[in-house]
């Protein structure tokens, strides 16, 4: 089936070349980081995780969000999603590849990465995250590939594939729960030390993942002869609406606990993020953008007549993606480190090499997604009447 990915139009090849150029540029900057060390990033002793780990967190969410097409199809027998499950699965594969690469570029000693497997520490959440993410990626590759090749041959896929599908559903929840546990179990980082962290992660994942999927479906419809169809996109829009409501609700719960209790440690990071602390407020404009976009997207998503217009839905999805990205891909990680353990405010901002390396990783992820989607769509075009 992979052969389908090497037969494409001029637009397809231009897009591929564009991504490859970004990948090469990113790799160039990675070489700089490789030789000089992580000092080329904006991270430091106080904010010791930054843009990279933020992206890891965000794209675990995108990967988990893919389950929102798999679950209704397999558990609720919602037949319409049969057309798009493979798109959800392949999106998850690309997202997890990004996660893996973001961890790799964040490591100080990449050549020693195998120590994770050679000397695993069973009390470390990172070890479990490594396992669940890799297994989830493998599952999605196997499921997507088998379902698609069965579709191509016009036969029903084998039973064990279906069993794997059922396992993959709770597994999707597990990847984001475990990722939340990376943060939620750390003493002394008040912004992260919250029992609803995993729930918040899942809510934002089930908003951002399907939102990205809707955008991808619309792109697929525009550039290929395969139409993911109106009903599917509309149902996904409903899922995004519910998930985004939960996401905002959970954030409000955090605000209540912090500000009604008035416990300084619980308030500091939030105050830093939304109004600045001790004269430092680099993230304030970003966080208010996220809040504003969240509110606007909710208005667009909650009003049924608005949501059902695909152009409005597209706009709402873009707002959801930006809003959840700022919240989880940036503010969450950085905010957790500010103020530092000495209650001093040391700010963080990514550097050019850091951003370029990240762009390289995003390009790699979308390169994989493009190839897998090209394959899937070509098969679907072939079998279409």
């Amino acid at each position, binding site marked *: 089936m992979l052969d389908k990915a090497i037969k494409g139009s001029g637009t397809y090849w231009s897009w591929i070349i564009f991504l490859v150029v970004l990948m090469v540029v990113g790799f160039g900057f990675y070489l700089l980081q490789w030789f*000089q*060390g*992580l*000092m080329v990033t904006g*991270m*430091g*002793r*106080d904010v*010791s*995780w930054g843009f990279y780990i933020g992206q890891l967190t965000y794209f675990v969410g995108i990967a988990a969000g893919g389950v929102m097409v798999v679950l209704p199809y397999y558990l609720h027998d919602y037949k319409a999603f049969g057309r798009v499950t493979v798109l959800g699965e392949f999106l998850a594969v690309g997202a997890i590849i990004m996660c893996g690469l973001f*961890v790799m570029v*964040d*490591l*100080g*000693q*990449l050549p*020693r*990465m195998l*120590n*994770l497997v*050679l*000397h*695993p*520490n069973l*009390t*470390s*959440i*990172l*070890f479990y995250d*490594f396992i669940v993410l890799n297994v989830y990626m493998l599952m999605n590759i196997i499921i997507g590939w088998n379902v698609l090749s069965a579709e191509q041959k016009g036969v029903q896929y084998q039973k064990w594939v279906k069993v794997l599908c059922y396992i993959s559903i709770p597994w999707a929840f597990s990847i984001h729960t475990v990722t939340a546990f*990376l943060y939620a179990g*750390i*003493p*002394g*980082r008040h912004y992260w030390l919250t029992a609803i962290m995993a729930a918040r992660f899942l809510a934002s994942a089930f908003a951002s993942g399907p939102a990205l999927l809707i955008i991808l479906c619309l792109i697929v419809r525009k550039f290929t002869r395969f139409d993911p169809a109106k009903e599917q996109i509309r149902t996904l829009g409903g899922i995004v609406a519910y998930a985004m409501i939960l996401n905002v609700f959970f954030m409000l719960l955090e605000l209540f606990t912090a500000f009604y209790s008035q416990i*300084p*440690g619980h308030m500091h990071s939030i105050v830093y993020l939304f109004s600045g602390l001790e004269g430092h407020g680099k993230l304030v404009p970003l966080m208010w953008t996220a809040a504003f976009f969240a509110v606007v997207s909710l208005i667009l998503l909650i009003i049924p007549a608005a949501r059902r217009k695909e152009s409005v839905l597209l706009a709402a999805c873009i707002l959801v993606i930006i809003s959840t990205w700022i919240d989880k891909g940036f503010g969450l990680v950085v905010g*957790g*480190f500010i103020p*530092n*353990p*000495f*209650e*001093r405010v*040391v700010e963080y901002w990514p550097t050019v090499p850091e951003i370029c390396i990240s762009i390289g990783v995003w390009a790699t992820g979308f390169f994989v997604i493009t190839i897998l989607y090209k394959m899937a769509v070509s098969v679907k075009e072939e079998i279409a009447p």
Partner: protein
Amino acid sequence: MGIDRRSFIKIAGLSAIFGLGGKAAFELLAPGDVDASLKDIPLTQANTWGMVVDTNKMTDEIMVACKSACHKEHNVPEWGDSRLEVKWIWTDTYEHTFPNQGHNYLDEQFAEKHFLVLCNHCDFPPCCRVCPTKATWKREDGIVMMDQHRCIGCRFCMAACPFGARSFNWGDPQKAPIELNPQFPTNPDYPTRTKGVVEKCNFCAERIARGLIPACVEAANAVEEDSLVFGDLDDHGSKVRGLLRSNYAIRRKAELGTGPNIYYIV
């Protein structure tokens, strides 16, 4: 005669940790030397190493001496940039050392006073719990140890430590500004690190193994006796326990339950 199994393992382990191959390891393991270094020295047999800082005796001068002795002993480079800084032992003011424990009516002298801070060698260290590769672990004698050859540089431990006690080598220490590090490495007997690994205070495990007290304690006591005391907190008769019996002492962020083992007499 000779060394027992326990000591052998300890020394062999230590040698491995510090990458003391070949000659250095043989020197350390040479029976005569080992017998001599272990005799009459209860130091190497503690259950819970800890430290007591007598803040009444501590002065800025002593703290500078502590930091200088430690950083010289362990080849800690000077970066001249607070973002890249590597610190094993340093100082901060009351409100930053003991957040949430200050109040509006704190005596000015006290509020502006500096306190010595370093790794707390916690009883239940979150850094060791989160390390994915066991590159940092709790030794039997209580020291929270670091293996810089095992560390993959994920910095999870830095996120987990509530005391900001861990430093990352954001750049290659050998390439730290030469004008700030005219003589680097400062101690040829101690390894330098590579870029991309985490490091922190090791309670001078390499000195303890030789029957010496930590460099900072030695430096502090050279100026003012008992301003900084090191010993076994599990030993009822130890000096540290004596000080804790006769003085009121506090710890940093004890409410988090990590069990810090640095005590501050106030």
